[in-house]
């Protein structure tokens, strides 16, 4: 299965990687992929109608119907390979951030660890964050909380595309709008009872496709079920913060 997948990067976000002697060429949206391959959908409903149907045939048929730019075959290959080599599924995602001025900072994302090795993109991605004028800041970028909302929207949207692809649903357009409610009495320290983070997040999807409303609802449900960012926001995570204090005098001593 793995050797059948294309070796060169193709669709958006595809990355060619080698790990421990086996090769997975497309690992786009791996968090969403697992879900994309499970859950009842059109293709599985078909399978159910005809228990003896050739499953491979069904999948192929499914793929030829819809094209959302998701390489389902490669994702299936990745899933199979990672089931066999669970240690290759252990990833470390990273971002570096540097303070510029005031609330303005710049994050850079390039390398990550996965498939048993350090991986590096050809080009780093750079994201600026700041606060708007209402917070007496320079507005050099989105606020960090808006970046979180955008991460949620992107993750769910990517999930919708892959789940739909796997279920043979052709998407024409997918638009998500996300709104996070926040009482800033928390971050401003006005009221200790108020939490700093969002009190609630609302996502609205506007999807144009060839599927029924129920089928789309199921796709959206499945994309939440397998979304990393949805999980990050809905469930607690331990965060360990360490500090290296730079002291000029000490630095001189060392040097």
């Amino acid at each position, binding site marked *: 299965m793995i050797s059948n997948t294309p070796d060169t990067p193709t669709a958006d976000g595809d990355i060619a990687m080698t790990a421990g002697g086996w090769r997975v060429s497309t690992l786009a949206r791996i968090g969403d992929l697992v879900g994309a*391959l*499970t*859950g*009842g959908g059109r*293709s*599985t*409903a078909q*399978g*159910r109608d005809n*228990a*003896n149907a050739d*499953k491979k045939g069904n999948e192929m048929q499914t793929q030829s119907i819809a094209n959302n730019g998701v390489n389902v075959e490669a994702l299936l290959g990745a899933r199979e390979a990672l089931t066999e080599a*669970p240690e290759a599924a252990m990833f470390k995602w990273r971002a570096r951030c540097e303070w510029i001025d005031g609330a303005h900072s710049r994050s850079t994302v390039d390398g990550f660890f996965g498939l048993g090795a350090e991986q590096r993109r050809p080009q780093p991605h750079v994201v600026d964050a700041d606060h708007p004028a209402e917070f007496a800041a320079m507005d050099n970028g989105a606020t960090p909380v808006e970046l979180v909302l955008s991460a949620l929207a992107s993750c769910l949207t990517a999930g919708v595309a892959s789940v739909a692809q796997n279920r043979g649903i052709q998407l024409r357009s997918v638009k998500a709008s996300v709104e996070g409610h926040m009482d800033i009495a928390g971050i401003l320290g006005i009221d200790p009872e108020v939490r700093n983070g969002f009190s*609630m997040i609302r996502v609205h999807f506007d999807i144009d496709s060839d599927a029924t409303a*129920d089928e789309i*609802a*199921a796709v959206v*449900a*499945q994309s*939440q*079920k397998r979304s990393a960012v*949805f*999980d990050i*926001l*809905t*469930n*607690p995570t331990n965060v360990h913060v360490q500090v290296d204090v730079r002291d000029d005098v000490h630095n001189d001593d060392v040097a």
Partner: protein
Amino acid sequence: MTRISTVIIGAGHCGLAMSRRLSQRNVDHVVLERGRVANSWRTERWDSLRLLTPNWQSTLPGDPYDGPAPDGFMTMPELIFRLERYAQRGGAPVQTQTEVLAVHAEASGYRVETTRGVFHCANVVLASGACNIANAPAVAAEVPRSVQTFTPMSYKRPADLPNKGVLVVGASASGVQIAREVHASGRPVTLAVGEHVRVPRSYRGRDIQRWMQRLGLLDQRWDAVDDLNRVRRTPSLQLAGGGLWRTLDLNALTDDGVRIVGRLVGVRAGKAQFSGSLANMCAAADLKMNRLLDAIDAHVEETVLQHVVGPQRRLAPTRVPSDPLLELDFGGEAIGSVIWATGYRPDYSWLHLPVTDRKGRLRHDGGVLDAPGLYAMGLPFIRKRKSTLITGAGDDAAALAEHLVARSARRLAA
């Protein structure tokens, strides 16, 4: 020391069904049981439990239901009585009070060590149950000491719980049934809901199990499903026996006053934390339920049953609280106990053979293990969707007995 062709481990319904199938094929065997026949049903269930499968369905090969209430649901004493009678009538060679301590491979087959001596045999059938251990998540260790913890195996009746609030974790069959009776006892229940399978008790005037059978879902084979791992992990149907035709879903529990919250994901500083994914869990369960009911409607159309069955009345969508609770303070809310209704798993700690995967699950192809003459029964979807039910044991035992006999014949010929 005893030498015998086949050892069956466990005298639950699976072991008894296999014994019946082997007797029919003149295979010399013994059924080793650590307790008495139907031990799990005698010792590991709560008092009020009834089967969630109707009587007409809860049968073993050669023993159709002949009682007065085919659409009723058996209590534990009734089921135990029936299983004992089944063992007696079939002359099943059960050796009770004999616990298997270890199974090893040896040159000519297997060495089965028990509390009553050693058996040497060519074949072993693992019928020791799918539900030997109640799962509890890792966060269980963080629950404050002052809170008592139970599982559906240790829980027997509400009166055994402290007279305080109760957190029930898990909303599949065991969780919803226990939540209802505990709440009715006056102990306010909070129910943590993760992935679950919602179905109405009945639809269009027929029990849901009747439809599942009619649609061929129960007979679906392991080698004909799209994603076997997923179906094997699917939690039990949110169903209860008793209260004829009564649906026990989250809406019914909400009506009772049970508080519905998201999946339990953490316990920190004396507080339970719940996932914010409750709405999606419920939406997904509603969608799946309606897909099943759509399939039933389609079947009714195809087979022109419209005039025989009832109207297409669907359950209302699950009512999710607008702001589900995300945190529960065990102390502040006076929670006296937690019940982990988070599923069960089998115990094969005595099975010293390289037949499990890295998560300790048996590797098998339709109950045929990767070791000659070794078979397993009773696990979810081991051969068919109904394998997990009492009604599934007959077919599975027949198929595996057939395999066992064919293999023995080949061995003799060789």
